[in-house]
């Protein structure tokens, strides 16, 4: 009997595993949070990376995007490999690769080294994220699964807000980490990954698809190329122009690869991602809700960080801490949403969540440069409550529609829609914000070069102002 063979009874029927289930959920959520916060947290350290490595704007963009592209591109394949060879193995291997990439990133001294490290981290992260949710499904009995998924989804959402806070805190200099050392943003992942690996080795059970369906290398290759090219188009579209030859070329590659993937999967006896899943209304609506929910959320995170730092003059740590009310609300509301959803129906729950998100976004739409922080908190709490009410039932809907032996792939669909939605949110909402900013900025009387940079972006005006954070606070009449 191979080490990772599935036992004949369900995992949650084992009294030892059943007793450990909530502790295991904590370990899985910690694994999830380090992967999720690596997307948002590094943004805070980018200025320090730029300064110490003399990185160009293109380098910085690739440091952020390389992780997202590799991560999203590999998710489906990694979920299928986890189902086939063991979710615990996938989690352990993913954490080891993620930790290795983080260690390389912490001690490299070139921008290209950081980009390479982020690619390695992205590969590891693609195995970690689907494995956490599919293991969770295996260790919780059906009657508790909804609540466990809701807690997982709460941390998946809150991780985006926790990342900038953790990295902002580390940059202030803590324990052995020197102040303003960007490597601490990577090294914290190594420490956490090692702790989680020990916990998983000690406590997590083995779980996999016992039918041993053959792998689908052609489907994996097509999904990898298609999703990576799609992410590349979404990320590069606003910078290089949506109709530019480069972007259109990658869009064609994405369309051909993803179209080929659908046709290939429909013809296979044992597809990696059965297309019949999408005929299930619960599965397709859940996927759509995750896409739109994270489209709004990631777009919000992207813009509000700039608003805090470049308009209100917050330090990186304060900017990270400013979103805490939203993260806390999300984590508190998410477990309750599962219970209410069971009573009133998950679709109604998701609709109610979108209503709360709409209300929160409307509150944030009335902000001014010198609005009180309480005004912001009002919007954040509503937005967090909305997301905490929308994402857990949506993830639960996706997972309820896939059979247990496809839990890794179901989880990967949830994660992929989240990443694609998030990238779309940053691209589309970021483009709208750039367009409005450029039409609103007044640069009359400035030297030509200063006017050009200030018109380009709010960061450009910051570079040329020469007044720093104190000047931004002064502009809001907070210093004299």
């Amino acid at each position, binding site marked *: 009997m191979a080490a990772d063979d599935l036992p004949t009874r369900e995992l949650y029927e084992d009294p030892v595993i059943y007793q450990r289930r909530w502790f295991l959920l904590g370990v899985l959520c910690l694994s999830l949070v380090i992967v999720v916060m690596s997307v948002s947290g590094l943004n805070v350290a980018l200025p320090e990376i*730029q300064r110490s490595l003399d990185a*160009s*704007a293109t380098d910085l963009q690739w440091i952020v995007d390389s992780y997202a592209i590799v991560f999203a591109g590999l998710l489906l394949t990694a979920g299928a490999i986890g189902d086939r060879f063991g979710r615990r193995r996938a989690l352990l291997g993913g954490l080891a690769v993620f930790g290795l990439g983080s260690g390389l990133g912490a001690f490299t001294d070139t921008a290209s080294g950081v980009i390479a490290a982020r690619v390695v981290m992205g590969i590891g992260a693609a195995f970690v994220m689907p494995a956490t949710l599919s293991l969770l499904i295996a260790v919780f009995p059906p009657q508790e699964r909804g609540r466990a998924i809701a807690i997982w989804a709460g941390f998946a959402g809150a991780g985006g807000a926790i990342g900038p806070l953790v990295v902002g805190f580390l940059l202030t200099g803590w324990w052995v980490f020197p102040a303003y050392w960007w490597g601490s943003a990577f090294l914290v992942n190594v420490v956490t990954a090692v702790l989680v690996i020990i916990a998983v080795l000690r406590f997590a059970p083995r779980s996999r698809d016992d039918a041993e369906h053959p792998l689908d290398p052609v489907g994996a290759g097509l999904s990898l190329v298609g999703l990576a090219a799609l992410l590349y188009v979404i990320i590069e579209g606003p910078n290089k122009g949506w109709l530019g030859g480069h972007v259109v070329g990658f869009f064609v590659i994405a369309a051909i690869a993803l179209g080929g993937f659908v046709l290939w999967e429909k013809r296979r006896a044992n597809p990696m991602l059965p297309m019949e899943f999408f005929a299930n*209304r619960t599965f397709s*609506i859940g996927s759509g809700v995750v896409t*739109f*929910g994270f489209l*709004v959320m990631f777009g*919000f995170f992207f*813009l*509000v960080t700039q*608003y805090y730092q*470049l*308009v209100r003059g917050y330090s990186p740590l304060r900017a990270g801490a400013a979103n805490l009310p939203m993260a806390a609300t999300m984590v508190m509301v998410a477990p309750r949403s599962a219970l209410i959803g*069971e*009573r*009133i*129906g998950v*679709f*109604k729950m*998701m*609709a*109610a969540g*979108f*209503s709360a*998100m*709409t209300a929160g*976004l*409307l509150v*944030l*739409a*009335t*902000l*001014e*440069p010198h609005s009180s922080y309480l005004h912001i908190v009002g919007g954040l709490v509503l937005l967090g409550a909305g997301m905490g009410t929308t994402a857990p039932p949506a993830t639960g809907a996706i997972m309820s529609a896939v059979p247990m032996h496809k839990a890794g792939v179901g989880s990967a669909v949830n994660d992929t829609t989240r990443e694609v939605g998030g990238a779309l949110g940053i691209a589309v909402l970021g483009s*709208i*914000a*750039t367009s*409005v*900013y450029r039409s609103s*900025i*007044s*640069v009359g009387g*400035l030297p030509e*070069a*200063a006017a050009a*940079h*200030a018109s380009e972006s*709010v960061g450009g*005006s*910051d*570079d*040329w*102002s*020469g*007044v720093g954070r104190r*000047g*931004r606070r002064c*502009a*809001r009449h907070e210093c004299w």
Partner: protein
Amino acid sequence: MTIGRELGGEAGVALVTSAGEAFTEAFTTTMFVSAGISLIAGILVYLASRSEEPQG
């Protein structure tokens, strides 16, 4: 990237004031658009929910 501290003083504060106001307008406009997206998504999911059987 740090291009240079070209202005400083009152001119610098004037620039960040103008940029801050412009970015705030960009941010609030985007929040309105996001609210619209969220509202439409909510309505669509609500319409789908009308054929859903409550489980409780």
